[in-house]
């Protein structure tokens, strides 16, 4: 028993270490937003200030980049929600030949390195002489967002009793009424969670975007330029903090919605 306790202690220590490794960098981002240091990344911070928040908020280029990112993410997410749900419904309702290939095709854009997707889209855009635009970014993002919605919705479908749909039709509802009153409420949270994750994925994407954006600047593209050629360190620090805080929210929500409803379903069994 003695050696077991020792093993357990080592295990817990290692786990705690890994958790710290995962989270300290995030904490440091929160810290640096308040530094007075403008030219280096000196630690300990030479001084504390909140002045950079005002400076960052006054930057028009940042607002424009943020607006573009949000717009792209919203449209890409909308496309992904429609296409992902359709594919999930098709795969769930029938055992057709080649359903494995459907999953495979949808997973491919995130299974292959981002750079492959990026350069592939780039070469297609170049080959067809399509000018870079808002839509070239959106179409690229939608390809890898579909799978998050698809996975979430399909998982929910599989947990939902098939007889619910039959019961609804049996009670007089046609396919559309059944979708509205029974299917949608049951997959709703999964759809929303998938959408949230798709939004987060798109909002943060930079690798594919650098190949499909041309001269347009999304927020990640702006941050990337600061990573390679830092010009606005204090502003970047503030942006970094805000992004961390904003992206944490949808993750909490997505997590909550998917786990809540799984509890409810288990109780229902």
């Amino acid at each position: 028993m003695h050696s077991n306790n020792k093993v357990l202690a080592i295990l817990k220590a290692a786990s705690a270490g890994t958790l710290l490794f995962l989270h300290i960098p995030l904490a440091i981002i929160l810290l640096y937003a308040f530094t007075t240091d403008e030219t280096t990344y000196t630690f300990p911070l030479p001084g504390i200030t909140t002045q950079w928040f005002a400076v960052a908020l006054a930057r028009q280029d940042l607002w424009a980049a943020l607006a573009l990112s949000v717009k792209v993410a919203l449209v890409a997410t909308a496309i992904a929600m429609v296409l992902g749900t359709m594919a999930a419904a098709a795969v769930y309702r029938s055992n057709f030949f080649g359903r494995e290939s459907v999953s495979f095709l949808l997973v491919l854009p995130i299974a292959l390195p981002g750079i492959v997707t990026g350069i592939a889209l780039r070469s297609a855009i170049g080959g067809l002489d399509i000018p870079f635009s808002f839509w070239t970014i959106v179409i690229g993002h939608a390809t890898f967002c579909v799978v998050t919605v698809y996975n979430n919705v399909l998982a929910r479908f599989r947990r939902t009793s098939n007889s619910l749909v039959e019961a609804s039709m049996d009670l007089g509802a046609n396919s559309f009424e059944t979708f509205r009153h029974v299917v949608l409420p049951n997959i709703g949270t999964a759809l929303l969670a998938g959408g949230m994750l798709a939004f987060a994925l798109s909002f943060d994407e930079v690798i594919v975007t650098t190949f499909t954006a041309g001269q347009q600047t999304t927020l990640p593209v702006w941050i990337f330029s600061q990573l390679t050629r830092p010009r606005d360190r204090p502003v970047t620090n503030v942006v970094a903090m805000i992004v961390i805080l904003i992206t944490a929210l949808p993750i909490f929500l997505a997590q909550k919605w998917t786990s809540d409803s799984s509890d409810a379903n288990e109780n229902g069994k």
Partner: protein
Amino acid sequence: MFKFLSTYLYLRPKLVLGLLLGPPMIYMAVVYLGSLASLLVNSFYKLDSFTGLIDRQFTLETYAQLFQRSNLDILIRTTTMAAAVTITDALIAFPLAYTIAKVAGKRAKSFLYLAVMLPLWSSYLIRVYAWKLILSKEGIISWLFNLVGLNPLLDWILSLPNIGGSSLALSPIGVFIVFCYIWLPYMILPIQAALERVSGTLEEASSDLGAKTTQTFFNITLPLSMPGVIAGSIFTFSLTLGDFIVPLSLGNSKYFIGQAVYSHQGTSGNVPLAAAFTMGPVLIMVIYLLIARRMGAFDAL
């Protein structure tokens, strides 16, 4: 009206399947597979070095360029890095994954799970940026080494050929650390999922048969969790192969595949060479996926 349409469709399940499957499949086939095809085609073109235009004639010259010493170095350097990151992450990830799956109680488990999900889904760029702060010459790491009086050690590490550099933020070591950090959650989650599937009764049976804790671990738990490790390694390997943000932000002037692709298509407009370069990771990943599938890792994805 809706009722009529509903009935019409109800009697034609194959049509419904087609209508549901059509749009997503057409979208993915046209946009994604189409692009991949165009990528493949492009890799068989070449850039006319005199005019700077793409010569749309079938040629293997571009692929031949990959085997030039400098380009071959890039492929080898990137693959080595991907392998090192994958092995390191597997080692770091296992204890935490094991704790989540086997040791933690119900509440602790959901807390720990969220603690892994949070960094996974928070902004990738910002996490890279955090390490730029940490690893920079005047940053926390240097400060820490100074604090305990070990800066000669740091200087010695940085002076090593191949992995050193002017500071941690501008060295292969830095790139390695950041890659390990960024992809770590992708390794933890599949291992944890695989460990969850290892039934506790198996482990009890093993210790019942007289195996010590460590024997049980090495004979039962570890082999059964291998599909998870392999699934995780697909992510860490693939993501490292295709990344150019981390080496561009933290590395030195020695290129990785991602950087080569990025700069060839960007500044020089050499899309064919960029395309040929990406065929490296594609080929490596296809082989990797085939091996992984044979080892049953897909169930753990």
